[in-house]
């Protein structure tokens, strides 16, 4: 108990805590019999930035959904911080997911809640006091440059702004791992670049960032590690030059 607390405090003091991800021979077959991932083995260091790429249907989303435990792997092990999350019991999932941030192409914002309330959702779920939550929400919103829009509703924002609200919600809990599935899918190149810059900032404070994107041009220009999937198999693994 005391050890728990101590370790948690240490991680907390050290800017943002981190998480390593290790796929070992992971296979995923959907209910209709389609095998979306075949024997994937990938190791992602804590605090690194990694791009998942490949054609549509290559298995990028499946990879991220397995990590979030939105899908169950049929074979293999997925170790996060050394613990096999495929074996986490159902009741441990909420606490597990609170330490992951997830961003989707269609951001999944609640239309009838303000920007502030959307971003505050993960904190509320975690039972944080309103006063503390407000500080965190404002910090996250200012990080994505939307502090002045906190009382707006999502539909009043541009697509790029909506995506940034989604990112603010994903990081407000200070997750150890940040996952993004085609976060720039709906954005023009300029905005896409801004979003990627944002992700780099989160990596710089120690978060492990994994971004799935089929925008080869954009991710090639950034110089981070690129894992390319093809028909559920590992095609290429290009180490990053910018990745310290």
């Amino acid at each position, binding site marked *: 108990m005391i050890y728990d607390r101590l*370790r*948690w405090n240490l991680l907390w003091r050290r800017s943002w*805590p981190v998480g390593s991800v290790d796929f070992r021979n992971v296979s995923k077959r959907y209910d209709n019999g389609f095998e979306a991932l075949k024997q994937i083995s990938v190791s992602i260091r804590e605090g690194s930035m990694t791009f998942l790429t490949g054609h549509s249907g290559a298995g990028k989303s499946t990879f991220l959904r397995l990590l*979030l435990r*939105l899908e169950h792997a049929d074979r293999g092990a997925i170790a996060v911080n050394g*613990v096999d999350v495929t074996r986490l019991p159902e009741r441990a999932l909420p*606490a597990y997911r609170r330490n992951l941030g997830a961003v989707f192409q269609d951001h999944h914002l*609640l239309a009838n809640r303000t920007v502030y309330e959307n971003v505050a959702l993960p904190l509320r779920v975690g039972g944080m*006091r309103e006063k503390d939550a407000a500080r965190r929400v404002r910090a996250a919103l200012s990080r994505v440059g939307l502090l002045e829009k906190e009382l707006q509703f999502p539909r009043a924002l541009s697509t790029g702004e909506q995506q940034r609200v989604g990112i603010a919600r994903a990081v407000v809990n200070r997750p150890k791992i940040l996952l993004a599935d085609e976060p720039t899918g709906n954005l023009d190149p300029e905005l896409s670049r801004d979003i990627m810059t944002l992700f780099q900032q989160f990596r710089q404070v120690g978060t492990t960032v994994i971004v799935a994107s089929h925008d080869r041009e954009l991710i090639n220009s950034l110089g981070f590690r690129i894992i390319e999937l093809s028909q559920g198999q590992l095609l290429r693994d290009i180490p990053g030059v910018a990745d310290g």
Partner: protein
Amino acid sequence: MAKEKVSTHPWPSPPRARFAWFRDHARVASESFGYLSARLATSLLVWLLIGIALALPAGLFLLQTNLSSLTGDWQGRPGVSVYFERGVAKTHVDAVIAKAEAQASVQQVWHITPEDALEEFQEFSGLAESLDLLAANPLPSSLKVTLANSADVVDLQDVARILGAQKGVDEVVIEKTWLERLAALSSLVNRLGVVLGAMFALGAVLVTATSVRLAIEARLDELRVQKLVGASNAFLRRPFLYFGLLYGLGGGLIALMLLSAVLLLLEKPLATLLGSYGSTLNVVGFDFTFLAGLMLLGGVLGLFGAVLASQQRLGTVEVV
């Protein structure tokens, strides 16, 4: 223990936020109240449905309580008439009188000799002359036994059985007709109440379950996102349990109002009806315990419906 925790979970668990549970309950309670009052028309409909479902069995329960209290302390004169064999010995009559007076539930015993009976009959029938022609008095000696106010049907039957078994007694007639009918009615109402109560309680549960189910469907988007960002099942379920509770409590309140209205409407005719049997209307059982019990019942049924609905629907919520 600490080691175990670290090794079965990727992250060390943060210290639990103190009072988080209470804070969330307070927040959800007020939000649910706001949600229901924002949809007042729908909520009123649900409350009315549950109220009616509760009012009927509750009304029957009240009726039954009152009927059994009526049969319990009836002001009329329940009693038995004991007819002796003709030419019975005086010692036997005295023994039966002593036996009757020894019963705790017996209030008074009158002895009517054959002569008394004949006199009374002549007076009553106006057949004096013709009866004078009879050689012997055909009427038996008899006793009229009245019971104390506290006596009930069972006491009456006991006394009749005991006296009927005495020597020299020819026949015992129980003067109880309306008392008996009332008791039979009371037990009918009782059974009806149990059957209807069960059916209508099921109805109340289904009404809340359906309403809660609709509320869940309406908030499915939100539930998905909450699940994605790590909401526990208890967290997801909480607002809906409050819905159920509030629906049920509101239904209980409506049931109370309905019952009060019915009592007001029926007060006069009921008093007249019961007054004709020498009783005044004095509704028993419509007291604080009854009111609190009805509210509590409503709350419990509503909560149960909500548990059913959320158990059935929230388990299958797909996260994005």
